[in-house]
């Protein structure tokens, strides 16, 4: 464990590379205090679950929409304000859905990282 100090914003790996010490293993193998490791395990498990649900929804949207358009060619002839619905489904529809998905996932991921709801988190 190294002590806290002011450092340049270079990554350890970059400094390693620049110093020409291109040895095999990282200079100091990563190490976590037991309490941190426990907390990290909890966060990791929950983030993974959230990530998998969001990816499943993304896949359902992006793989499902082409399937739907292929299965229902009638959508080409239905028109909304003169534009075929199937064109709107590619050109417009995905973007607001993607924004909603991104917002939802951002909220959940940030909430997971907070140790206690309303805890004394310093926001930067």
């Amino acid at each position, binding site marked *: 464990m190294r002590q806290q100090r002011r450092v340049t914003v270079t990554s350890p790996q970059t400094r390693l590379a620049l110093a020409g010490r291109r040895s095999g293993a990282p200079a100091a*193998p990563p190490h976590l205090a037991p309490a941190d490791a426990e907390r990290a395990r909890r966060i990791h498990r929950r983030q993974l679950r959230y990530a998998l649900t969001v990816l499943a929804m993304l896949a359902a949207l992006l793989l499902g929409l082409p399937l739907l358009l292929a299965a229902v060619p009638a959508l080409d002839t239905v028109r909304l304000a003169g534009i075929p619905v199937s064109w709107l489904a590619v050109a417009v529809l995905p973007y607001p859905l*993607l924004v909603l998905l991104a917002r939802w996932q951002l909220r959940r991921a940030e909430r997971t990282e907070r140790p206690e709801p309303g805890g004394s988190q310093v926001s930067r």
Partner: protein
Amino acid sequence: MILAIVPVLLITLLIGARGVAAMRTTSDFLVASRRISPTVNAAAVSGEYLSAASFLGIAGLVVKDGIGSLWYAVGFAAGYVAMLTLVAAPMRRTGALTVPDFAEARLGSPGLRKLSAVVVLVIGYLYLVPQFTAAGQVLGVVSGSPYWVGVVIAGAAVSITLALGGMRAATYVQAFQFVLKLALFIVPAIWLVLQVGPDTRRDALTPVEFSRFDAVTRVQFQLDTELTVTEPTRVTTADGERELAPGEYAVEGGQTWVFPAGADVPRVGAAGPPGGPDWARPLLDPGGHPVLATWSVLVATVLGTMGLPHILIRFHTSPDGRGARRTAAITVGMLGVFYLFPAVYGLLGAVLLPELYLSGGTDTVVVALPARVDGSWVGTMFTALLTAGAFAAFLATSLGLLLAVSGALSHDLVPSTLRRLRFTPLVAALGVVLLALPAARVDVGVLVTSAFAVAASTFCPLLVLGIWWRRLTAHGAIVGMVTGLIASAGVIGVDLFLGAPPGLAAIVLGQPALWSVPLAFATMVLVSLRGRPPAWASAAMLRLHLDESEPRPR
């Protein structure tokens, strides 16, 4: 028209030159001191990301291949949802600047670092060459200069900017260029829609197959083209009028043929002409398997985004993991706005400039439209604005990519000093120019998607498994990445140089992501399961999920 590009270049160089004063260390050069808000950083990410493929390529593909090409744009934007979910925050927390850095930080393997650097070069060049190709074509269309002049000017502008300012410059240049590109893309699009009149608007939404020339049409062939004439046609060429009997004709690049009104439109290649029933289907369909082809492009673009070296390095200008994640989320919205508009250019282009399908210049449809709609100075002005935007798009992406490529060259493949790093971009740019000169014929959007496919098959499994799975071993990562590289880049190379076979094989070879990504993931997992990760591997993974604001041992 060259005048339109000069201001873009000057501002880029100016912002680039101002950056020199503040640049002290290699780390300054690479990541601009990391004091940038998520919104500014998201603008810079979007600015870097919106390349000539987005600005010109998608609209061009819509004219050429149909409405289904809009899936490229959907995939380009959706990639940031995957980035936000899987990679942004943990990747930032590694402190690694690039994927090679990440590979060494997480798995402690110098061999993997070198392999990653090689993959950066492959992706970088696959992405850079079409950018330079597009720049050369656009300059050719607006100024009549030969293709190679445009390519050389482009290479000079990019490498000088980089050598002068590095990434500090690039961050501000990118954020500025995003705003510029957005304005230069949206305003002309709205003007075009209002200017063309209700009849053209209706025609654009009810496509009719481009089988007869409505009016006397000049077709300027950019490249050597094979035409198939199906009924006797009189054309006027440089040698005077001649009657074409049905059959095959080879046209040399640079010639101009004039077709009379009412003449039958010759065929080019296997693809149908714009406006046909296949063209109007909202799916990509190169070989009779529309769903598979569309999925393959989506898998490549969505999963490839997180492996793009020039985008990843941009997330390190966020102060922490949380900032990086917010940057990715805001980027989804910014790109979503931009990608509403390629459809406008594509649909109008298919109605007003369908002859681009003959001349092989569909990638220039965006800059060619204003002059077609309005012959007066107003049209000329909008052409100038769009040319400036296209050049900004080219410049922005090329800057970031060249930085990533030169970083990989001088950081990872050869030990370096700052001085060397400043001149590596010049060498890297020279290489791109030399490769772009013979590549005039490739579709910008398609080759860029190949770069995405390679990224999705190599870096995506490395990053995703490295961040989320503690049992990944260096050996598994190496075997998986080599497999992914061969399955994607190797197969695309075969497809490019030997020509695409018909049917299902066209998708399997031309867009391999649908099978190469699962293959790379499976290889990485299986080989890792046979080995044992080092004792510190679990800590190396878990610390990526801890918020930096908590006190923790470093």
